[in-house]
């Protein structure tokens, strides 16, 4: 087990190295360059000077080695735009994204599981059709459209929710004010996850409900609700949990569109801004951080399998 974990960690390290090298290369060959260099307001001569100051005139391999050796010392570098340390910005944005994506995921899971289960127990009923139709609509609606419409109707027209931001004033905001600001973006974002969860839950539960052991449980004279929650639910959840597990990295990665439209200061927006401005250290920092989280969570999931199911051994 220990040697397996060790091997996996070494693998993850190599994958991370490869990923960072590819990202490094891609951002270098992307047309354009750091936005402070391609601003038409600066002369090419000044741009060249700034490029030298930023170390961008060195050969690519040299730049990469310098970057990676700084990284190994825990130094992610500084933003090209405002000179702030990349790690400082990452850890400033991370909690905001955790709050938004966490709330959205929680909403999606709770409503998705319940509605999927209800649909599965009443296959081809009106409620089943309604849940399936809604999930198709949910999957099909473009997120930006839904976000703008919800702002237009619920914020501008009916003034029920604030249109944007995390709080009325970030320096002195009450919990109630923060929740008030969270409801709209979290609900809109949850529509990304909810339909998937509902559909997976429905089909998984429908399969479980026709299993022999469920019939036996019914035959024993158990109450229908007990059969559902004590016997069927546990097994039906396994594939759904995998789906939910796959959604977990977005907790850290953020939701660029939702965060941009609702002016939510999260990771997704940071990543998009960094990409548009070609803020190389920031792009690299986000990529490495996010990849590390994905690799680590995969490792944890694999280890959890072995713990859950004694037949799996490493």
């Amino acid at each position, binding site marked *: 087990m220990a040697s397996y974990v060790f091997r996996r960690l070494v693998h993850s390290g190599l994958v991370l190295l490869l990923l960072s090298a590819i990202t490094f290369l891609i951002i270098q060959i992307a047309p354009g360059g750091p936005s*402070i260099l391609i601003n*038409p307001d600066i002369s*090419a001569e000044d741009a060249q000077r700034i490029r030298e100051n930023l170390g961008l005139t060195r050969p690519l391999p040299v730049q990469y080695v310098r970057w990676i050796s700084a990284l190994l010392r825990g130094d992610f570098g500084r933003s090209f735009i405002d000179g702030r340390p990349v790690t400082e910005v990452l850890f400033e944005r991370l909690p905001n994204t955790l709050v938004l994506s966490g709330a959205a995921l929680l909403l999606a899971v709770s409503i998705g599981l319940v509605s999927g289960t209800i649909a599965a127990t009443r296959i081809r009923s009106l409620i089943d059709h309604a849940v399936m139709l809604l999930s198709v609509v949910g999957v099909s609606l473009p997120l930006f459209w839904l976000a703008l419409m919800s702002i237009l109707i619920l914020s501008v027209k009916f003034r029920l929710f604030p249109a944007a931001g995390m709080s009325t*004033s970030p320096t002195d905001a009450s919990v109630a004010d923060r929740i008030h600001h969270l409801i709209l973006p979290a609900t809109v974002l949850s529509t990304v996850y909810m339909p998937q969860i509902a559909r997976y839950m429905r089909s998984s539960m429908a399969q479980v409900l026709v299993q022999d052991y469920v019939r036996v449980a019914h035959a024993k004279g158990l109450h229908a609700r007990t059969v559902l929650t004590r016997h069927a639910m546990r097994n039906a959840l396994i594939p759904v949990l995998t789906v939910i597990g796959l959604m977990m990295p977005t907790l850290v990665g953020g939701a660029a569109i939702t965060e941009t439209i609702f002016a939510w200061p999260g990771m997704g927006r940071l990543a998009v801004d960094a990409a548009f401005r070609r803020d190389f250290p920031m792009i690299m920092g986000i990529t490495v951080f996010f990849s590390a989280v994905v690799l680590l969570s995969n490792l944890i999931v694999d280890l959890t399998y072995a713990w859950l199911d004694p037949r799996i051994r490493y």
Partner: protein
Amino acid sequence: MMTRRQVMQATAAGAGVLLGDRILMGAGSVAAQPKGGNLSIAIYSDPVMNPVIAQGKESNWTNAFLFNMLVKPSEENPARMVPDLARSWDISSDGTVWTFHLRTNVKWHDGKPFTAEDVKFTFDRILDSTTNTRLRSDLRPIQSIDVVNAGTVRFRLGKPYAPLLTFLGYTAGIVPKHLLDGKDINTAAEFNTKKPIGTGAFRLRSYRSASEVVVEANPDYHLGRPHLDTVTLKIVPDVNAQIALLNTGGLDLAMIEPFALGGVKGNPNLDIVTFDQMTWWHISPNTTVPLFADKRVRQALTHALDREAISKNVSGGSWPVMATPIPPFLKPWHNPAVQPYAYNPEKAASLLREVGWTKGSDGMLQKDGQPLKFKLLWGRIAGRQEIAVLVQQYWRDLGVDVEMEGLEWSATIARFVKRDYQIFLDRWVAPYEPDMTNYFSSSAATTGKNSAVYRNPEIDRMLEAGRSATDLEERKKIYFKFQEAIHDEQPQIFLFWQPDTQVRSKAFSGIPRMATGLGDPFYYANEYRRLQ
């Protein structure tokens, strides 16, 4: 030395000194009016709160609250500089030594006195080639800065440089020596993003990245405490969200492109106001491409466009068609005798015929069996596509085969910097200055903003003379001639002026009628009042 009057005329700073006094008097005499309140302004992204290394609107706007410049644009005429930290100035008769007399009652936000040392420090940093600043190229003619005494600073130039005053008032805020000396100004993140210390009417209260910047009234401001308590610069990246916030009272002021204005029209609490600014749309042929080397081709391409109709289509007609890059509002430099080319497809066709382009059987122009064909480059951001599509249509009607190259913005600008295009559609944002060296001189052909890669010794001579002229009348004459020449040469296909469109709440008074782009109105933020 020149007389005071001559100095004022030569630098077009006349109204300035008087205006500064009027502001001082005004602040004291209206105590009965309401005080307090907050103004919320929309910015698109995080600012850098250090004017020396800052780029972009968000930084220019934020810094206008926190810092002062030596001089600032006047409310009446943005081309005229009025005192900010400098009380007054004299210029030596040969135009190479500028002496600025500073205000002596100014304190930094941390209580330390502001002196000539800070001015010298700021411009030394700007001129230092290790500083990542975009201010340097405009201020390069400065050779040295000497501190005469705590209240006097002297700039020495290599040769006369008339635009100096404009560039000193063009986002060039003064930063404190005692906090930045000996530090790398590029990476001084503690100062640049957390604890900026300026002399401005407002000082930083709090800043949350991607969320908001809150500045509060500076009680020791040298023109008196501002009337507002706070100003909040909200970072809202999406224009639709900005409009939603304007409509719900979450924002009081934003600069909105005309394409997005529909969302705020009809709101009784908001005013939509437009101001003149030096922003023009152009299509720049790369004149090193043989096809565009002949001015008749460039003239023909201008004559072939119904620019009125294009403006109507993309701006509802609010963008006036332009004749030259010196606009009617830029007094006294604009030459009213030079008028825009008329929409005249026949004239366009005959000009091209002179050069040898004739219509083939397919209706397209050709010469020696070759079609008249080129690629039009533009960036996929605000408005470019709408204009490009119409331009393509007009030129096709003329018989020109225009291929579209619409690219992502960064990629577009990278191509521009390398001058890697046949013809390029974009807009320029210029300082309030008739000096067009950066746009049309051969010295800027490959390293500046000369988007037509245009080289013309006669134009170069005029631009050089205009820069170093010390007499107002003489300088004016040079720019009048320059406008005639540039109009005839048509190095760029000049399209239209884009005024600044500001959406603001009716709840405020005292916000000057100035274009927002460079943050000019915010240098007057001490005069704003909230009425309700």
